[in-house]
């Protein structure tokens, strides 16, 4: 299963519906919702955190969090 953490820089995906329970409320509120388009923009030098654009929001999240958010690569 792909997650945000398995994306390569520049790749996109759609957050899968089954992730809902695993996404913290705060991240949901910032636009990281199931069904949203997510793009990996950058990876920090020590391969963590990840810089993503989801639903128009530009966010930095940690890899462990990203690994819990399942996606379907597009």
């Amino acid at each position, binding site marked *: 299963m792909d997650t945000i953490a398995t994306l390569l820089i520049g790749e996109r995906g759609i957050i899968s519906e089954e992730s*809902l*329970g695993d*996404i*913290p*409320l*705060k*991240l*949901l*509120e*910032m*636009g990281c*919702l*199931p069904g949203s388009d997510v793009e990996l*923009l*950058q990876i*920090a*030098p*020590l*391969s*963590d*955190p990840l*810089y993503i654009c989801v*639903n*128009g*929001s*530009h*966010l*930095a*999240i*940690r890899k462990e*969090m990203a690994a819990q958010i399942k996606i379907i690569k597009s």
Partner: protein
Amino acid sequence: MENSNPIQVALIGNPNTGKTSLFNQLTGLNQKVGNYPGVTVDKKQGICKLPNNQEAIITDLPGTYSINPTSVDESIVLKSLLTVDDENYPDVIVVVADIENLKRNLFLFSQVKDLEIPIILVINMADQLDRKGISIDVETLKKELKTETILISARKNLGIEEVKNAITHYAKSSNTHPLCSINHKIDEDYFEKLKKVSSNHTLYELWLMVTQNNMPESLTEKEKNKLLGFRDDMSKLKRYQHKETIHRYQQINEILKRTYIVDRSKANDVRAKLDSVFTHKIFGYVIFFGILLLIFQSIFDWATGPMDLIDSAFANISELVKKKFEPGVLISLITDGIIPGIGGVVIFIPQIAILFLFVAILEETGYMSRVVFLMDKIMRRYGMSGKSVIPLISGTACAIPAVMATRTISGWKERLITILVTPFTTCSARLPVYAILISLVIPDKKLFGYFSLQGFTLLSLYALGFATAIISAFMLHKIVKVKRTSFFVAEMPNYKIPSIKNVVFNVVEKTKAFVLGAGKIILAISIILWFLASNGPESYKNAEKSVIENVANKNLSAEEIQHKIASLKLEKSYIGIMGKTIEPVIKPLGYDWKIGIALISSFAAREVFVGTLATIYSVENDDENVSTIKERMRAEVNPETGEKTFSLAVGMSLLIFYAFAMQCMGTLAVVKRETKTWKWPIAQLVGMGALAYISAFLTFIIFS
């Protein structure tokens, strides 16, 4: 028409929306910063003149992405909106959104809207519509959101008058509608039951009281208990909150589909280009360390001039007052207690203002978020977060604002560790102590014929401070167990050219907060120290007589006799007695009771060390030319050993002691406020004290 009751307005919005720019435009210089009861979050308020001569009191609430709080700052927003009987409970809310992140901004708006308080939506950065390729149908948006909606550009001062008009028009308006009815799509029965708990509150208010466990005073005991009953099944609560969020976004998406179009081909995105430089795995760090060097350079270089001016100005004022008035207890309190006390605070203003200037510019431009991104992984190894970098940098000016800057760190453990280790960074109060000790004991030689040995020592002390902060963070990381899990998400805002107005306001406000906050403590301790130094038991009162008797047949000038009297008085004063009392404890470190006095008085602020020694050693000099503190200290001889008091070993030992010891009441007080318990400041005092004592002891042995 003059109205006696001003309109209460609350400004709410995501961070980085230009909320503060709008606040500055509406209120101008009519701003004041207060405190919310019980917490240290700054309450920013300002007065705005409305077109019909009415006044509005604008409260700038902390930036937040949601009404559901995850930090102290954010919890203020919820509290302000639920406390109906508060004097600043809004008559109208202005939600500030920015054009680029409208969707996410509307999420917060939808929550606020459901509280059914009169509301205005202000969409900022309208001047950027073309550049971002955005087109927006404001009229339809207005209808869909059932809300007055205004496009503005706070930077270009466009649309501000419309906002003022809307405030007059919509304040206390009864025409309020919820946007999203949370009950139907989630669980109708559940929310029907919740609604029946109280008729005085809207359903969404009750829901917030349940989910956030925030029960306002206005509820009866029975209602409170009923609401608490809804908290029995926390997993259900969490599930419903998730559903609510999705439901809100669905509704917003529907509305935006009809009103908001982005043509990506027209968007001119500099963000990606700048990001590829600023977050580059090599250039990113090079640029960051370059900026750090620039900050340090300017803190030391630019601030020296003004600091010297302030120093001499306060000394002159003291002298002037002494000359103008008859000597007495009151004049002594003013010239030796209050004026130097105030001077001890004011002298930090140049360094602190310069530091705040840099931090404000870095935050305004959006660069600070990139630093957080670059540093997070590194800092996490030491139990901190990328967001800990800002406090650690601020600590080089003063630990007090640095500890307050940790509020943005959402993980409690990460925040606590940052608070605990920040005082190790070399603050500006240590600098005068370092400067005088280094020039006393370190030879003025060149290292490898190039680097100054004295400069190298100073640099090493800075490195030592940072290294100790990092190492102790690592140890705390292993020791401190906190149940609450850490959670990290940082918005990466778009790059912006900083607005001069915002930066200036920010610097003035933070500097003022420092002067008033820390200043009170430093001043109070200065006065206590003055009392201890200018009062004493019987032998203190006889000091003058005994000196005059002793020197009767020696050929001394009046000035020299005065010095001798001052010296003996200090020895016999309460603080002199305290110094003698702790002498056995500090003897292993190579210090005598005079240094003991200086150590005790350093608790007001470390740099008081220099002034205290100046008083103590302002004696026993026959040579007229020897007048500076440095020369006096250098000439001082230990009567027991016959060696110089300030030998290399003593000097190094003192340097190490000052690098590690927690000698700052101001910091202890602010740590207590931020952690809400005395446990942590006491742990700092004891832990850092023990480290300082042991290290200073070892240093003394090595160098002697």
